[in-house]
Every structure is written in C-alpha cells, then in structure tokens.
C-alpha cells in the first residue's frame, strides 16, 4: 500500500529510467517524488527534498561521495539503513542484481519502504530489458551492414559472386564457432589494417 506521506528522492543520471520510476511511484500514490539527474549542488538539493527514501542506480560513481555526505550531514535526517531489511537477503540481492540501491532514513519501518524498493527494482529490470532489446535490434542492424560490407570485399578480392561470398562467411563462422557478423568484422578490420580499400 502506498504511503503518500513519504518523500522519495530518485538519483539517476539516466533521465528515461528516472522518469519510468517516477511514473511508477506516482501511479502507486506517491506524490512527493524528486528526481535528480546531475550531481551539481546535490547536497543542497537533498536538503531541500528532505527525503525519507533515496533510490540510486548502482552505475552512479558518486555513491561513495553520497554515503559520506549522509554520514556527515546534520541537515539531512540520516539516511543510513541501506536496504529495507538485512534479513531479507533475497530482496537485497534482487535490488543489486537489478542495479539499484536504496537509502532509508534511520528509524523508518521497513514495511513502509519495501513496496517502494520492490517497485524500483521491477522498473529497473523492465528498463534494462527494453534497453537490451533496443541494443539487440541495433546490433542486428549493424551486423547486417557489416556482413554486407564483408561480402562486397570478398566479391572484389576473390572475384566471386554474392552468394558464394556469403557462403564463405557462413562456413568460416561455423568452422570457428563464431557469429557471421564477428567473422565479417574481423575480415574488415584486417582489410583496414592492410590498407585494402573497400
């Protein structure tokens, strides 16, 4: 159940992901959500947001700095307890796996926070899945281009037809137990190094 009285701060340099988490929090009834994308003036902004819960992505290299700030700060109520419950190791592992970490103001009861972390974890995972699919699609497109260029190179060098060039690539890939796009890429790299023009 959402706890609308909680102030939640999301620190994520990835704006798209932060927006997805914010949307999730708002849908769940949280309206005190602050997003921070850059570290400039972060101490003051954390002070202003006075968060009960801080959600941060693990790629952020500033975690060490933030943890230090939490330990020193007197203005911010101490967001020390890092995970919802030390004994709840599966949920902690799930969070780290998903690439997200949370800080919680000392003394806040865990059941108030758990739904927030769970939501962040599932949104992080969904985002990673989307990003992966997008990357795969890009790789595939890129792979096609690379294979086409390698085919043209082989056709020119070996004076063979397109089908034969493709068959040669495929055979080599199978023999070496690698992807056709990888073989095509190494062929192009080698040609590049040797100064063959394509």
């Amino acid at each position: 159940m959402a706890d609308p009285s909680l102030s939640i701060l999301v620190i994520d340099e990835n704006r798209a992901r932060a927006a997805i988490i914010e949307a999730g929090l708002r849908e769940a009834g949280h309206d005190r959500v602050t997003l921070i994308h850059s570290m400039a003036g972060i101490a003051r902004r954390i002070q202003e947001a006075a968060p009960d819960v801080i959600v941060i992505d693990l790629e952020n290299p500033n975690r060490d700095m933030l943890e230090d700030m939490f330990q020193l700060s007197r203005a911010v109520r101490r967001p020390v307890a890092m995970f919802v419950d030390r004994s709840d190791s599966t949920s902690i592992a799930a969070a780290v796996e998903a690439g997200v970490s949370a800080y919680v103001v000392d003394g806040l009861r865990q059941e108030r926070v758990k739904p927030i972390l769970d939501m962040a974890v599932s949104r992080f995972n969904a985002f990673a899945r989307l990003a992966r699919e997008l990357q795969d699609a890009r790789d595939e497109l890129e792979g096609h281009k690379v294979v086409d260029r390698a085919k043209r190179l082989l056709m020119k060098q070996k004076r063979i037809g397109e089908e034969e060039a493709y068959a040669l690539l495929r055979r080599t890939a199978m023999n070496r137990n690698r992807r056709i796009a990888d073989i095509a890429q190494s062929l192009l790299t080698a040609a590049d190094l040797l100064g063959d023009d394509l």
Partner: protein
Amino acid sequence: MTTHRITAGFMPLLDSAILVAARAKGFAEAEGIDLSLLRETSWANIRDRIAVGHVQVAHILGPMPIACNLGLTAFAAPMVVPMALGLGGNAVTVSNALWTLMEAAGARPDLAPAAAGRALREVAARRARDGWARLRFAVVHRHSGHNYELRYWLAACGLVPGRDIDIVILPPPLMPDALASGALDGFCAGEPWNTAAVMHGSGRVATVKAAIWRNSPEKVLGADAAWAEAHPDALDALLRALHRASLWCGTPANREELATLLADPAHVGCPADWLLSALSGELRTGPGVTARVPDFIVPQASAATFPWKSHALWFYSQMVRWGQIAHDPAATAIARDTYRPDLYRRALGPLGVGLPAANAKVEGALTRPTPVGGAGAGLTLGPDGFFDGTRFDPDSLDAYIAAQALSDSAQTA
C-alpha cells in the same frame, strides 16, 4: 582437478594488477580456478556485491573491510583480509595554480612531503588571512588509505583538516576535471588518476604515498568471511594464484606487458604508457617533468602481499584519530582480526614462500631494506618509514592514539 568458480570485484585502477594478471596470465586457471572479474564503479558497489554474494572476493581499500566489520558502513557482510594486493601507488596532486603558490613558498619538484606540506600550510594561512575560502582536497573514500595518509601528512605539517583545509569525497575519474575547473585544489588518489591530471595539464604531483609512508598498505583482497570459512580449498588456491600473479607483476621485464594488459578497456582503460610510468617508478609529475620514486608501487617485494596486523591496526588508529570510531578493546580486536595472516600462511607456507616470522611489525622501524628471519625462502622487508620519523608500535596502540590526540588538540587549541 576440482574447479573452483570465483568471481572477484575490482575497480579500474593500477593496483588491480594482481587480480587482472591472475586471470589473464593463466595463474588462476593453473590452480583450477574459473576466475571471473567484475569491474565496478564505486567502492560501495564492491561492498554490496560481497554482501549479497555476487562476488566472493574483491580488490578493496585496505581500511574498508575493517570499517565494514566495525559496523561503520551500512549493510555489509563480515569480511576477512587474507592477502594484501601490494604496497604504495598513491600520490597527492594539486592544481597548477596551487602548485605555483606552493613552489613560491618552498615546495620542490622532488616530492619531499615536509617541504610541500610547509609550503601548503603557508598558502593556507595566507588565504585565511586574506579571507579566502579554505582550500579543498578530495579523496576517494572516507575509509581509504588515501584519506588517512593525506590527513597524516597534513597534520604532521601543522594543517588541521576541517579548519585549515577541507577534505571531500569524490570519485577519482572526476578529480582531474575538478582540478582544472577550480572546483578542487588538490586530491589524493591512486593511479592512473594523478598521471591523468598531469597529462591533461590540470595538475602537478606534490608528493607521493611512498614518501609519506614508505612501503605502506593500500588495496587488499577482501573476502566474504562466510565464503572463506566454507571454502578453504578455493581460498588457498586463489591465494596461490594471486601469489604467482604478484611475482609476475613484480618482475620488471613484464612491466610493459602488464601495462598493455591493464590498459584494456575491460580493465583500467587508459593509455598503457600512463600505467608504465607509474609501474616503473618514473612518475610524471608535471608538464615534461618526471621524478624517480623509489617503491612508488610495490606488487611483490618486501612481503607486499602479506596482510600485516600492524597495517590493520594503523588504519584503525586513524579511524579513531579522525573521529570515525571510539577507541575500545572490542573495536581494536575486530580491526586486528579482520586481517588474517594465518590464512596467508596456510595457503602459501607449503609453497616455500618467504614468510615473516611475526604477524605484526613496528611500522617505521626500518630505514633501509632489511633481511629478516622467517619460514621459507629469504625475505627482505622495508624500508617502511614515515616521513616525520615517527613509529607505530602495534603493541603500544593506546599510547600512539593518545599521542596523536594530544598533538592534534594542541594544534586546534
């Protein structure tokens, strides 16, 4: 041979060398270890990944496992330190503007800590008189060798951290730019970040860890205590692999290959040439200036991988000194017991490796390389002096802590 699957976390730094070489040069494989390396972006991530069991061991700041075991950090699994990952490797780099002022006040390009510290104190005092903001230096983590050696150096030169100079935490990749933009006046970090600042033209190396405290502890192998307890064979095999890797890293003929290996984007990801200069102790300290630094980074010699309890206790003494923890016998025991030379001996004794006779030593007692008795092959230790000539005797921990507290309060009075 049984296969042990081990995942090790590391940060992209020069002193990840032993772990990286253990995998890349086949030392792990030869011990039946399927070693995976997981590159991380913060020490907090390393700590968390050990805690949730994603990694069993990690390249970690020497004081950090102690801080975790003392409960000074949020959520951490109990950790042990069965091995160190070398000695030295850090430097203090200042902005060009600050260096100009320091040089005018007597700092020399030979990296001598006392002269540089005196000059810095003079600059800081002048700024205070003129009503300028305090100088701001950065370190990578509050529980780091960087933080403690920077503070040690400043305090020994009459500068009070927090009063005369601010110390903030910043991720090292941001430090060179922060120097250039004026957001920072100096930093203490490992390599390649000092060289990076020099190569970018944003800073000058003012002094080095190896001059502040010769052959002093830096990164260690932190292991999940529960894992280490449950898998003694895997741990022993890993320590043997890391020992062989340290021998390889410590051989001058391998430096170039090591620099190339570490330069790979999967490891440190910077020009090999930067790493080579640090590995060879020919440190770039300014535009077109290099300095020969004896023992700048030591992967193997001088028992560089031995997890001395005196190192653990010195880190602990500095946690007390800087108000991170109150000194008491229980905390002292936790700090001492975090470093585990017994595990090191158990794994490497059978190899005939030169082992020190004791688990702790008086730090700062050796002014020159000294052959010491011990099990196995011959062993030479030191020099291990502090630049101000003091000694740290772990058997007189209380007195050391009291003396530092007294001199610190005299300075702030």
